[in-house]
């Protein structure tokens, strides 16, 4: 009996001590937006009374109520670093969303988010300026794609990384209104029989690949529904390697990325076509990612609404993505 008694007593005592320690720990408090006594600077662009026609009608998330000018003034925004705006994106950051500098500042491998060149870099700096931050008040942090929309506290104020709005994602993070309506597309090699496909039915017999956790993967499963199970990779680069090795016939990615892939990453790559959602269904769109219930979300939404209604978003899109939209449409 003695041999059992002592270890049990020690274990019991340890656990009771551990209980005392864990129950004493309080949960981390959520950051609260404490408006400071700051003079009200120029009010943000007042929103147009009705949504612009290009906004997704049915599947759009409920827009946050218009915030008061004081809540969105730069002095009172509860950012990760007071007085500065922290924006997150993945590394490498790919053109045409982020264009490289010569040389790139560390740690950015491919595109340089800090130079405001590239579609998403330009949108990010435009949003920052409309929120009242100057370009040198903007910091960039590296956030892997799947971490950005995962639940939990964030190291950024908002993240811009071709994250599509999905209801499951919107439940665990705040997703802004759209800044770009995007179509998925199929990339393959020029000499592949997939290159001649014109309809979804033509494509069913091929093997497709996509990055894990993306709407591109969802497109393969739900739209193409091929007979062979899709190959899933950690990154698009791995999928490109597989395409080059002939292990998959085609990759599904968003259309601007497809342009970069066929221009820079594949020697004889072609875009087979793009998928367009039917007229009665809301299309896929990119959103900025913010922490769940972030106080910045209404401000960012208001800024994006303003940018859409005054045409500045269209201008940015034309500058960086104008040639990146011409690809044949894949019929269902």
């Amino acid at each position, binding site marked *: 009996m003695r041999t059992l008694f002592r270890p049990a007593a020690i274990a019991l005592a340890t*656990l009771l001590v*551990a*209980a005392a320690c864990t129950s004493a720990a309080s949960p981390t408090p959520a950051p609260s937006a404490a408006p400071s006594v700051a003079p009200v600077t120029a009010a943000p662009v007042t929103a147009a009374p009705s949504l612009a026609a290009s906004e997704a009608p049915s599947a759009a998330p409920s827009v946050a109520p218009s915030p008061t000018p004081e809540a969105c003034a730069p002095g009172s925004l509860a950012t990760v670093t007071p007085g500065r705006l922290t924006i997150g994106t993945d590394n490498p950051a790919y053109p045409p969303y982020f264009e490289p500098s010569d040389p790139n500042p560390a740690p950015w491998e491919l595109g340089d988010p800090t130079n405001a060149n590239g579609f998403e870099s330009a949108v990010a700096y435009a949003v920052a300026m409309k929120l009242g931050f100057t370009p040198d008040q903007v910091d960039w942090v590296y956030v892997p794609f799947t971490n950005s929309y995962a639940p939990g506290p964030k190291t950024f104020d908002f993240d811009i990384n071709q994250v599509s709005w999905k209801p499951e994602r919107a439940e665990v993070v705040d997703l802004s209104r759209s800044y770009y309506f995007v179509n998925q597309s199929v990339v393959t090699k020029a000499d592949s029989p997939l290159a001649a496909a014109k309809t979804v039915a033509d494509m069913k017999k091929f093997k497709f690949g996509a990055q894990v956790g993306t709407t591109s993967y969802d497109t393969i499963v739900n739209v193409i529904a091929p007979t062979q199970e899709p190959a*899933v990779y*950690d990154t698009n680069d791995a999928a490109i390697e*597989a395409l080059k090795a002939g*292990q998959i016939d085609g990759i599904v990615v968003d259309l601007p990325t497809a342009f970069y892939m066929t221009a820079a990453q594949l020697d004889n790559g072609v875009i087979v076509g793009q998928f367009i959602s039917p007229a009665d269904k809301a299309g896929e769109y990119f959103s900025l990612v913010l922490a769940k219930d972030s106080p910045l979300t209404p401000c960012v939404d208001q800024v994006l609404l303003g940018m859409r209604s005054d045409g500045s978003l269209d201008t940015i899109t034309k500058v960086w993505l104008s040639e990146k939209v011409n690809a044949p449409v894949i019929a269902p």
Partner: protein
Amino acid sequence: MAGPTGSAIDPGPPAGGPGRSSIPIAGPPRLGSAARSTLIAVASTVVVFGVIGWIVVNAPGWPAVQKSFLNGPVFWSSLPSIIRAFWVNVQLFLIAEVLILGFGLVIAVLRSLPGPAFVPIRFLSTAYVDIFRALPGVLVIYILGFGIPGLGLPGVPNQPFFYAVLALTLIYSAYVSEVYRAGIDSVHPSQDAAARSLGLSRFQSLRHVVLPQAVRRVVPPLLNDFIGLQKDTVLVSYIGVVEIFRQSQIKQAATFNFTPYIATALVFIVITIPLARLTDWLVARDRKRQLSGAR
């Protein structure tokens, strides 16, 4: 000694007559010591795990953890696809294990060939073992799985599954050959000397005398490596094949719930525990045989 009522009683003459030492007379039947130990073991286990459970369930973050990691509906909805994807891992480790056991033995024997004539062979096999024990599995699978098909050589297979088998075989044979070598070295040299003196050649001595003893001794470490191999089959997910881990990752990315990972963990535990108990039984049987001097 006290009587039933607790009052002191004169013990009287010792039982068994004068001159005998005092022997306590057995009282009413009490719990046997085996049953008492079991009762204490059960009680202490219930108390310990009860306390742990109480602490966990009352921790402030428990509802969130339960929703994220132990979500019933998500578990049951993801389990079928996870088990289906596990079939890829099963095929992979069954096929690879057979190849590893064979190739590892070949490497071990090659490394132990004596004499100056075999220096290049010993050098090559030593280099092979060193390199493949040094390389992380991810590197090997990327280099083999994408690199070789990328060369476009005619007649080279292009299925990712083949390259996963190849990578696992190359990596694990390096480790297993060292296990075999330890087994061969542990057989006393007098065995080999006796075999040689009977006129067996080096190869015959190895095959009929040394290796049977050596392999029997290293069955537990070999089973250990087999258990490790079952986990390393996730390597194939890096080159696109959807196996159990990738499938649980797909489910996790779709639902933001970590319960699919718990389901995957349970599957691995369920297949590993019987193998681990089998290893323990084999070790115990071996010890019993050695210690009792069985022939």
